[in-house]
C-alpha cells in the first residue's frame, strides 16, 4: 500500500489483531436490534394495532352500503317530482277536450248538456284513447312533453272537428252552410237571405233552425228580420 513496498511489507509483519468475539457479537446484535425495531409500514400491524384493519374495513363497507341504499331510495322521488308537471300538462287537454269540442259541434249554444250519443260526445271520446297512450309515451320521454302536448291538443281539435262533418254528412246534409254556424250567425244569415229576397230559402233555413233549436228564443228585432211577414 505504501509507496515503499518495504515499509508496507514491514507493516504487514505486525500482528494482525482482530476484535474480540464478544465485541463482534455485541455489535452484530445491536445491528439486528436496530433493524427489528425499525417500523415496517407494509407489514400487517400486530398487538394493539391489529384491530385497526378489520374495524376500518367494516366502517368503509358499512358507509358504502349506506350511501348506496340512500341513493337508490332517493332516486324514485327525484325522478317522480319532475314527472308531476308533465302529468298535469297531459291532463289539461283531456279535460278540456270535450268543452272545446262543444263549440264547433252541432249543439254549441244549447242550454242543455250534450247527450252521450251526440256526435260531439263521440268526438270527445275518440281522442281520449290516443291521449292516454301518448301520455304513457310522454312519461318515458320527458323532453318531448311540450311538443307532445301540442300534438295532443292538435289531435283533440282535429278529433273534435272531424266527427262533425261526418255527422253532418248523414243528418245535416239538407242543411245549408248556415246551419253549421252559431245560432246568431245562422239567424243573421237567414235575415240576409230575407233581405236579398230569397224568401224560400230563408223559410227553409228558419224552419230548420227552429227544428234544431226549438227552445231558442229569437230576439224580437231579429225575429222581424227572419220571418217572412215581419220582414216584409
Amino acid at each position, binding site marked *: 500500500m505504501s509507496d515503499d513496498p518495504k515499509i*508496507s511489507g514491514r507493516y504487514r509483519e505486525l500482528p494482525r489483531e482482530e*476484535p474480540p468475539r464478544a465485541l463482534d457479537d455485541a*455489535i452484530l446484535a445491536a445491528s439486528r436490534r436496530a433493524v427489528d425495531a425499525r417500523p415496517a409500514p407494509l407489514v400487517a400491524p400486530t398487538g394493539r394495532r391489529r384491530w385497526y384493519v378489520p374495524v376500518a374495513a367494516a366502517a368503509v363497507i358499512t358507509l358504502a352500503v349506506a350511501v348506496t341504499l340512500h341513493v337508490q331510495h332517493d332516486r324514485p322521488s327525484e325522478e317522480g317530482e319532475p314527472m308531476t308537471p308533465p302529468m298535469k300538462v297531459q291532463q289539461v287537454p283531456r279535460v278540456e277536450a270535450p268543452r272545446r269540442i262543444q263549440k264547433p259541434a252541432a249543439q254549441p249554444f244549447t242550454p242543455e248538456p250534450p247527450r252521450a250519443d251526440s256526435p260531439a260526445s263521440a268526438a270527445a271520446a275518440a281522442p281520449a284513447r290516443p291521449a292516454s297512450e301518448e301520455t304513457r309515451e310522454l312519461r318515458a320521454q320527458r323532453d318531448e312533453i311540450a311538443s307532445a302536448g301540442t300534438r295532443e291538443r292538435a289531435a283533440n281539435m282535429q278529433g273534435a272537428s272531424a266527427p262533425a262533418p261526418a255527422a253532418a254528412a248523414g243528418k245535416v246534409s239538407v242543411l245549408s252552410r248556415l246551419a253549421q254556424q252559431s245560432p246568431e250567425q245562422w239567424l243573421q244569415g237567414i235575415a240576409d237571405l230575407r233581405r236579398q229576397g230569397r224568401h224560400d230559402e230563408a223559410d227553409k233555413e228558419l224552419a230548420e233552425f227552429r227544428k234544431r233549436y226549438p227552445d231558442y228564443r229569437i230576439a224580437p228585432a231579429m225575429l222581424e228580420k227572419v220571418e217572412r211577414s215581419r220582414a216584409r
Partner: protein
Amino acid sequence: MEAPDEQLMLAYRDGDAGAFETLYARHRGALYRFVLRSLKDRPVAEELFQEAWIRVIEARERYAPSARFTTWLYTIAHNLLVDHWRRKGLVLVELNDEHASSDNPARQVEARESVARFLQVLEALPPAQREAFLLHEEAGMTVAEIAAATGTNEEAAKSRLRYAIAKLKAAVDE
C-alpha cells in the same frame, strides 16, 4: 463478484441485517487495528471501535453513498479518536507478538526486534502522521480520501503521509 460496500450499506438501511454482517466482516479487522494502533489503551480502543460501529448503525437511515463507505467509516473513527485525544492524550498500546513465528530462534529474535522497532517508530509518530499512515495501510485510502476522512486538505494529508513513511523507512533501514 462481491457487492460494493455502499450497496451493502444501502441494503442494511433498507432492513437487510445480513448486509451489515457482510460489511462488518469486511472491515472489522482493519478498523480495529487502526483504532488500536492509534491509541495506547486496548480497552479504550475496543470501546471506540464499538462506538464507531454503533454510530454506523444509528446513522444508517440518513446514509447516502456520496463517498466511499470506507471514507465514511474511518471519518467516524477519526472523530472518535480526536475526541479521545482531546480528553486524555496519547498513550502507548501494548501489542502482542504471538503471531510471529519462526523455527530459527535467532531469526525469531531478530524479527521480533525488527517488528518491535518498527512498531515503536510507528507509535512514536505524531498522531496525525500515524493516522495518515494507518489509513493508507489498513483502509487502503488515497491521499485525497485521507484528507476527506481526517477533515484536512490534500496537501496536508500528503505531507503527513510522506513524513510518516520517511520516518518508518529510516527505522527499517537501520
